[in-house]
C-alpha cells in the first residue's frame, strides 16, 4: 500500500530502531494480525467484513529496542499493542485503533536454566511448547500446561494470568513467576525483585500480571520449574449428580490432597464434548482425577480420593478413561471437532468459593438458556481449576445457527455475555478466571471493582500517561 508522508516518516523511524526487515506495512500481514483467537474478529472476517488493522507490525529484538519504540509511540501518540501467539480468546491483542503492533516472537531466547534452584529465564516471545521441550531435555517441566501451549508465548502466559490443565497442584502461570523484566510505556526498562516471596514493600510485581499489555511490555521472565514427575496416575469417576461431584472435589481440596488435575464435566458437556472427542457416552458428570510424583504417595492419594468419591456415589471407571482424557486433552481444540464458525460460542468462565459455585452454575445456566431460548442456545461447563477455597467454572454458550449478519451476530453475542456476567456478578463470581479481560470484558470492570475501579484508572494514567498501551483493553 502507498503510505502518506507522516506514515512513511514513522515507518522509517521504526526501521531505524529494529531494521528494515523487522517492520512490515504489507497488506497481507496487516490482515493476518487483525484477528486473534477470539470469536468476534473471526466471525467478522468469516462474514467477509474488514477489521481494524495495525499500521506497523514491528518485530523487536530487545527490551532496548522496545524502549525506543515507546519513545516514538509517545511522540506521535500511537497505540502499541503487544502480540505473542495471538491465542487470546478475549480480543486482548486486537489492534482496535491501529498503531504499532509489537510481535514479540523474535525475542525467543532461553537465557538460563538453573538446575539448582529449578528456574528458567527466557525472553517473553518464546513459544510455550518449544520452551517445554528445552526443559524436558533436562528432565524439567514448566508446569503450566495450557491448551494454548503450542501457540502461546511465555509473555502470553503471564499477561492474562493464564491457567493450565495441571494448575490444581502447580498453580497458575502467575504463581510460577519469580521475576520479570518489563518495558514501561514511558520507556524505562525495569526488573521486578528477583524472588516473589519477601517483605520489601508491596508486591508490585503482580501489577503486570493480568494487565494484558496495558501497563507495559513483559520482555523477560524467570519462572519456577519442576522435575518431570516420577509417576502419573490418571483415573475417571462418574457421578449421577453434579452436586455430589462438586462436593467430592471440595473434600479432596479442603482435606489437602494434591491432585494435579480434577476435571469435572457437567452432564451437558459429558453428553456432548466428552462424547464427541473421547467417544464415551456417559449419563452424568464425568470427572478425571490425576495424581503425580512419588509413586507410593500418588497411589495413596488416589486411593483416598476414590474413597471420597465413593462416599458420594461416584463410580470408579478405572484408569483407561482417565488416561484417554489426558492423552487427548488438547484434541478438543482442533478443527473441525472444536467449537468453530459459523457457530456462535463464548467462554464465560468464572471463579468463586465453594459455598457459591453450584448456585452460580445453575443461575448462569438458567439465565443464558432461558434468556436466549429462541436461538436454541446450549450452556455447557466444566470445573477444571480447583483451589482450597473454591473452583473455576469453565462455562460456555453455543448457538449452532446464529444470525448471518455480522452486526446482528455481534450484538447477540454481547447480549448473551451481558446476561451471563450479570448472573456471575450477582452470585459472587469473578468476571474471569484465566482467559483475561481483553476487549470483550472491559465493560464489566467497573461493575466488578466498584469504588476500586477509579483507583485502577488512576494507576493506569500514572504508568501510561499518554494512554498508548493496548487501548480499549482491560477496561482502560
Amino acid at each position: 500500500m502507498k503510505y502518506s508522508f507522516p506514515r512513511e516518516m514513522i515507518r522509517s523511524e521504526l526501521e531505524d530502531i529494529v531494521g528494515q526487515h523487522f517492520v512490515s506495512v504489507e497488506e497481507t500481514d496487516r490482515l493476518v494480525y487483525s484477528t486473534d483467537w477470539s470469536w468476534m474478529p473471526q466471525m467478522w472476517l468469516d462474514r467477509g467484513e474488514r477489521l481494524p488493522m495495525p499500521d506497523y507490525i514491528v518485530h523487536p529484538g530487545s527490551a532496548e529496542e522496545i524502549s525506543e519504540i515507546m519513545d516514538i509511540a509517545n511522540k506521535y501518540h500511537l497505540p502499541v499493542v503487544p502480540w505473542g501467539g495471538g491465542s487470546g480468546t478475549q480480543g486482548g491483542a486486537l489492534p482496535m485503533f491501529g498503531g504499532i503492533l509489537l510481535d514479540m516472537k523474535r525475542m525467543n531466547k532461553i537465557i538460563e536454566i538453573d538446575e539448582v534452584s529449578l528456574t528458567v529465564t527466557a525472553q517473553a516471545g518464546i513459544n510455550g511448547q518449544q520452551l517445554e521441550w528445552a526443559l524436558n531435555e533436562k528432565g524439567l517441566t514448566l508446569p503450566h500446561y495450557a491448551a494454548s501451549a503450542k501457540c502461546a508465548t511465555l509473555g502470553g502466559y503471564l499477561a492474562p494470568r493464564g491457567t493450565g490443565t495441571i494448575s490444581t497442584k502447580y498453580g497458575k502461570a502467575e504463581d510460577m513467576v519469580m521475576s520479570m523484566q518489563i518495558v514501561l510505556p514511558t520507556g524505562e526498562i525495569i526488573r521486578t525483585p528477583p524472588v516473589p516471596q519477601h517483605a520489601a514493600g508491596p508486591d508490585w510485581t503482580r501489577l503486570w500480571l493480568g494487565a494484558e499489555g496495558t501497563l507495559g511490555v513483559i520482555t523477560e521472565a524467570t519462572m519456577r520449574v519442576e522435575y518431570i514427575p516420577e509417576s502419573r496416575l490418571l483415573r475417571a469417576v462418574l457421578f449421577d449428580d453434579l452436586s455430589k461431584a462438586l462436593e467430592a472435589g471440595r473434600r479432596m481440596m479442603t482435606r489437602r490432597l494434591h491432585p494435579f488435575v480434577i476435571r469435572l464435566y457437567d452432564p451437558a458437556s459429558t453428553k456432548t464434548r466428552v462424547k464427541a472427542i473421547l467417544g464415551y457416552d456417559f449419563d452424568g458428570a464425568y470427572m478425571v482425577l490425576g495424581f503425580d510424583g512419588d509413586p507410593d504417595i500418588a497411589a495413596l492419594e488416589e486411593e483416598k480420593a476414590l474413597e471420597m468419591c465413593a462416599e458420594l456415589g461416584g463410580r470408579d471407571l478405572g484408569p483407561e478413561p482417565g488416561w484417554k482424557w489426558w492423552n487427548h486433552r488438547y484434541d478438543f481444540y482442533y478443527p473441525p471437532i472444536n467449537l468453530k464458525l459459523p457457530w456462535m460460542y463464548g467462554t464465560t468462565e468464572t471463579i468463586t468459593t465453594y459455598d457459591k459455585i453450584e448456585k452460580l452454575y445453575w443461575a448462569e445456566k438458567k439465565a443464558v438458556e432461558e434468556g436466549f431460548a429462541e436461538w436454541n442456545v446450549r450452556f455447557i461447563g466444566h470445573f477444571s481449576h480447583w483451589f482450597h477455597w473454591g473452583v473455576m467454572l469453565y462455562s460456555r454458550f453455543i448457538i449452532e445457527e446464529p444470525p448471518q449478519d455480522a452486526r446482528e451476530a455481534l450484538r447477540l453475542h454481547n447480549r448473551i455475555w451481558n446476561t451471563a456476567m450479570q448472573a456471575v456478578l450477582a452470585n459472587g463470581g469473578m468476571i474471569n478466571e484465566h482467559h483475561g479481560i481483553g476487549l470483550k470484558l472491559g465493560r464489566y470492570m467497573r461493575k466488578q471493582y466498584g469504588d476500586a475501579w477509579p483507583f485502577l484508572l488512576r494507576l493506569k494514567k500514572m504508568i501510561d500517561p499518554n494512554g498508548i498501551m493496548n487501548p480499549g483493553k482491560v477496561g482502560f
Partner: protein
Amino acid sequence: MTATRLDENILLTADNCRYCLMCRHVCPIGHVTGLETLTPHGWGLMIASNRRGLLTWNDESVFKLYSCADCGTCRAHCVTDQPLPETIATARAQVVEAGLAPPAVGRVAEMLQRWQNPYEEQAPEPVEGRGEVALFVGDEATYLRPGLLDAALKLLEAAGIRPVLIGRGRSNGYVASSLGLIEIAHDLARANLEDLAASGARRLLVLSPGDFFAFKQLYPERLQLSLPDSVDLSEVTVLLAQALDRGELAFEPLPPGPPHAYVDPSHSVRVKTRYDAPRKLLAAVIPAPPVELFWRRERTHPVGSTALKFTIPQFADHLTWARLGDARQAGAQRLISEDAGTLKALGDHAARFGVEVLSLYELLASQLR
C-alpha cells in the same frame, strides 16, 4: 488436470486452519521468520480471505503464499489430519493458472518440462532390464550428490539385492506439485510409474523420506495417481537396518572421532515409522552415542529438498542455518544424513558453522565388511 478440479476441499481445509494455532510450534518457516503470516494459520487465513474477497493475489501476497516450505510438519502434528500443505499447493496451482506465480516458478516449469528435473539440462535415463526390485533414483541423488547412488547400490548388493534403476535423473514430481505446477507434476509422476511398470518390479525402494512421501501420499492425494497395490514401497535405510538386524550386513566401526549427530532429512515427519532405522545403521559404523539435535524426529525441520531453494532461496538458507545452528548448539561436529538434497544444503553452508557433513550411504559403504 486443473487446479479447479482440486478446488472442492480447499475452502474447507483453509477454513479449518485459518483460526487454528495448534501446529504453530512446529512450523519451520514460522520459527525462522517469527512472522504470524508465515505460519499454517496465516496461510489458511490468506487462502480463506482470498475466497471471501478480503485479499487479492498480488506480488506481495503471492510471495507469502509461496513462503510455505511444504514440509508436511503441520499436517503430521494435526490431530485431525488437515491437509493444509495440499491446500496450499492447490492455491498455488490457482495462482499459476491465473498467471500470477513468481517468475522463478516459470523457470522451474521450463526446466521440468524440457528435462524432467530442475538441475541439469539432461534427460532422465531410460529403464534398463527387469527385476523383482526397483530403486527410484530421482533427480537430487543424481545431480546433487552423485556418489550417493553408487554407495547405496553397493550396500544393497551386500544385502543381496540388485535393483533395476528407475527415474534416474527425473524429479519425483514433488517440486512441481509444491509450486502449483500440477500438470507437470502429474506428467512426472506418471512417467515414474511407467518406469516402475516397465521394470516389472513388485518392490520399490527409495533413497529418502521425500521420495517415500511422493509415491505413498503425494501421488494419490495431489495427483490422483497410485502405486499398484501389488508393489511394496520401502526406504533403503529401513531395508538395510532389517538386514543388519538379521546379520546379513556387517560394518567396520570407525575410530573414535568428534561428536556426531544424525540429521533427519526433509519430509521425515511424513514417514512416521522411519526414525530409528538410519540411527541404527549409523550406530553400526560410529558406536559412540550421537548427540541429538533439538529439531529431530517428529519435530524435524526441513533442510534442502523443498521448492523454496528455487522461489525464496533466502528462506531455504535460513532453514539450513537453523539446522546448522542447532547442531552447533548441541555440540555436534559431524552431521550425517542420507538425503541428497539435505546433504547438499547442509554441505553448502557447513564450513561457516565449523561442522563436517557426511553421507550416510557413503559412510556405510566405506565401512562394509
